[in-house]
């Protein structure tokens, strides 16, 4: 009991000094309060992953209203009122988040067509795509390589290839059409 009283008296003194702008006193106070707050949260909710975020939230909240502390009154009830409020606020936020979250092991199908739902197949057959690109006429292949594979801008690709922007657009359009046809035939075949 005596230990608690001396701690309380020390915190009151440190807070009084901190309110007058004493940085060292404030640092000591916050340094002593962090484990105290951590313990209070732990006693209420047990240990959990985000406990440090909550401790920091309480410290920040305390900092923002430190002018509301009256050194004539005990310090711990003042601190715990803030801590309890922040804990309740965080609990409410957590419940709101959990209420709107749905945990699923596997995403359900999202489209009526079969193809988009084959998630396990990854991005498709890369080798076939590579071969289909290789079979394209030079201008179209160049457009695909620059605009899609190297992700160059139309302007940049035009400067690099010497083709006009309009010509690149036409070449890209034709290349995509040809690729779609080639890959489609392959899948059907």
């Amino acid at each position: 009991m005596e230990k608690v009283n001396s701690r309380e008296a020390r915190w009151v003194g440190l807070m009084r000094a901190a309110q007058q702008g004493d940085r060292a006193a404030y640092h000591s106070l916050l340094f002593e309060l962090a484990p105290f707050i951590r313990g209070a949260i732990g006693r209420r909710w047990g240990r959990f992953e985000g406990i440090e975020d909550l401790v920091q939230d309480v410290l920040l909240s305390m900092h923002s209203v430190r002018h509301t502390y009256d050194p004539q009154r005990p310090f711990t009830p003042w601190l715990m009122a803030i801590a309890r409020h922040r804990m309740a606020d965080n609990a409410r936020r957590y419940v709101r988040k959990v209420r709107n979250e749905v945990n699923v092991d596997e995403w359900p199908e999202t489209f009526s067509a079969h193809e988009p739902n084959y998630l396990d197949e990854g991005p498709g057959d890369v080798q076939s795509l590579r071969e289909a690109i290789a079979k394209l006429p030079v201008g179209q292949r160049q457009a695909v390589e620059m605009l899609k594979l190297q992700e160059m801008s139309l302007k940049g690709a035009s400067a690099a290839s010497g083709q006009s922007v309009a010509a690149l657009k036409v070449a890209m359009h034709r290349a995509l059409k040809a690729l779609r046809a080639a890959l489609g035939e392959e899948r059907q075949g």
Partner: protein
Amino acid sequence: MRTNVLIQRLSDQTTPVRRLPPPLRRLVLWLGIAAPSVMIMVAVMSPRPDLIEKLGESRYLLEQGAAVVTALTAAFAAFSAGVPGRPRWPLLLPLAPLALWLGSLGQGCLSNWLSLGPEGLTLQPDWMCLPAIALTGAVPAIAITVMIRRGAPLLPRATVALAALAAAALGNVGLRLFHPQDASLMVLVWQFGSVMLLTTVGCCFGRLLLRWRPIRA
């Protein structure tokens, strides 16, 4: 960010703060702003011609007294609510004068009904009450809003509702000094109702007005 880093940053940026005075001193300060503004409003609207006569009526004095005490206790409660660690019982303080005010109006309605029958409970439109209470209580409302925003937003809805109740009750006291309307049912519906409506509106805006200030650490 690690907690130790946060502690270092917070202590590095700490500056001297102006302590929040105790709720009672803040109440006196608020009253120093609110009471003159209500009096100015009464003077501008010109006091009711029968005011001296009304000041001798016990029912009028009881209702006005209850409204004043409601305003004072509600303001005290609003100021207390913003100080962490203070007891919560002051939040219930306004209930007693509010019950007395409501009881007096209810008793007035009952005696009107007993003496005059259904005619004693005639309700007519009196649309000026709500805007007049809001206008008379405007300066007290602005003053108390600025003052409660200095406190901690522990109970934002209750705090703003209590602040609105304080300002509206004081506005109603002012209204009854210049608006000659004393029929209990009329006062109950249009004046007490307006005070309750403004309190409810205040409650709805609680979370908007009182928030934790973001700190850059």
